[in-house]
């Protein structure tokens, strides 16, 4: 019996793989910076959407003193956590929402053929540097909100204010990936994913007490959006949850985010395995 040969397409060593990802990223950065005016316009346009979200909150508090039992400063803390987490997740992973187009046009076949991970490739193939502006603005809103919320600082809360946005990024990133996998089964799913991703962003911008019934149960606890901004904000403010969850619920954010990431990874693997080329 002949000694077994290594298959020719053996995985590259890790350093080579990193270099390949780095090359993809560099190509993206160069191609986007080439059209300077368009790039600046995109930077401005992207920050505009989040600016409008914040203006909406300001306008709402122009006609009411409290929203769902929370003051403007308390709500702004939730807006900051939500906007910051969403914007950074959108910058890093939001591109996966282009998956339906890749599946429809057959480009996903090419992605699968390359000796690199499919998901990292998809994210790096068009890393939207234009979304940087939104991430910076989201972070600024969070900083202002934390500064003005009158938080009674303890070492625990200092840790939480750092961990909660990171957990939010992981959570929203998982939501982006998980909802995109729908297009493996339903190519024409169009904007359906938006109802969870952008819907989740809207949901987390306001106190959960604003919502009601099964809708609140599904979004807040079924999908876990309460742990992005509402529960951490309560823990930071030292307020008891009017809906009855214990005080440590704010600290559950990282755990919820990890569960979400695990579920999203599973959904992605199952989806890729299920993927059949459109054959075009």
């Amino acid at each position, binding site marked *: 019996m002949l000694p077994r040969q290594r298959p020719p397409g053996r995985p590259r060593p890790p350093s080579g793989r990193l270099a390949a990802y780095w090359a993809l990223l560099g190509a993206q950065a160069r191609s986007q910076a080439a059209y300077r005016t368009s790039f600046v316009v995109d930077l*401005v346009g992207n920050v505009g959407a989040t600016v409008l979200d914040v203006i909406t909150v300001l306008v*709402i508090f122009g*006609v009411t003193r409290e929203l769902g039992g929370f003051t403007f400063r308390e709500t702004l803390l939730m807006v900051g956590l939500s906007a910051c987490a969403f914007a950074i997740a959108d910058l890093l992973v939001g591109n996966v929402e282009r998956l339906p187009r890749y599946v429809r046009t057959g480009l996903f076949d090419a992605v699968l053929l390359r000796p690199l991970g499919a998901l990292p490739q998809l994210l790096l193939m068009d890393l939207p540097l234009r979304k940087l502006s939104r991430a910076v603005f989201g972070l600024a809103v969070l900083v202002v909100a934390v500064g003005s919320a009158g938080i009674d600082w303890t070492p625990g809360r200092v840790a939480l204010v750092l961990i909660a946005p990171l957990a939010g990024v992981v959570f929203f990133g998982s939501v982006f990936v998980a909802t995109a996998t729908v297009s493996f089964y*339903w190519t024409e799913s169009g904007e359906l994913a938006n109802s969870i991703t952008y*819907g989740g962003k809207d949901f987390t911008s306001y106190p959960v*007490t604003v919502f009601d019934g099964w809708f609140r149960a599904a979004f807040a606890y079924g999908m876990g959006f309460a742990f992005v901004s509402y529960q951490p904000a309560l823990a930071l403010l030292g307020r008891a949850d009017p809906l009855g969850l214990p005080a440590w619920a704010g600290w559950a954010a990282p755990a919820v985010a990890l569960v979400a990431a695990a579920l999203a990874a599973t959904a992605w693997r199952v989806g890729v395995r299920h993927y059949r080329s459109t054959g075009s």
Partner: protein
Amino acid sequence: MAWLRKEGNGVGSVTATVAPPTASNVILWFRTFGAIAGSGFRRYATYRQAAVAGAVTNTVFGFLRCYLLLAVAGAAGSVAGYDRAQLATFVWAGQGLLAVILFWGWTDLADRIRTGEVASDLLRPVHPVTSYLATDLGRAGWAGVSRLLPPVLVGPLFFDVHLPARWQTVPLFVASVLLAVVLSFGCRYLVNATAYWLEDVRGPQILWTLASGAFAGLYFPLPFLPDALYLALQFGTPFPSLLQIPLDVLVERDSTATQVGLVAVQAGWTVAALALCRLVQRRAERRLVVQGG
């Protein structure tokens, strides 16, 4: 237009848009318009799965916005002249109308200008503004079936909504929505037409997307703003005429006389937008010839 010249078929000196027939036949014009609208309806009706996905998304956002505005009304039960039922109608009808009036995602004209395919639109015996408008009305008709009905039917299952109490409101609302569709088309046409001058229309598109969402009353009812600002927006910009006014007419926030006045404001903006479309198109055609020559 350079390719026309290269063919050597002698059309180089002809104005881009074919001159309208001198003996105008109104019946023929309506039949042409109807046929183009019908084909627009059929074209969009082929995307059924996308319509289902879109209707589900509108419904989810209906819940989000409805709960939010009801929380704003709070214990007092009313805010900025809307009671709870009026707010619910405002949100759910607004989510339904969003795809009918269509704010975003229409780049047909800009794409055709960039690729040069617009040249074949200019050779047709129908003015491009007219033919694109007919197609858009067909699209809006299909959206009225597939996108307007689901949220409008789901909303009342979960929330108390305000139904029109005066019969005059119904025809006024229908007229208001029609005007909003035509006005929205006019605005989108103008945004797309910047492609005649700009290589990349993303700038105007982004400005339009942000302004239409904020100032049309999608994020919050505009009466939440200070009165002076709202009046300035209403009379100084076309945006409230796109969504806020049809919804205010529907929820009967004002007397019948005021409703008529609001629809008249819309009509003014619509006429102005269409006239501007034709003007811009004429200027653009001159430029196109210069550019291609």
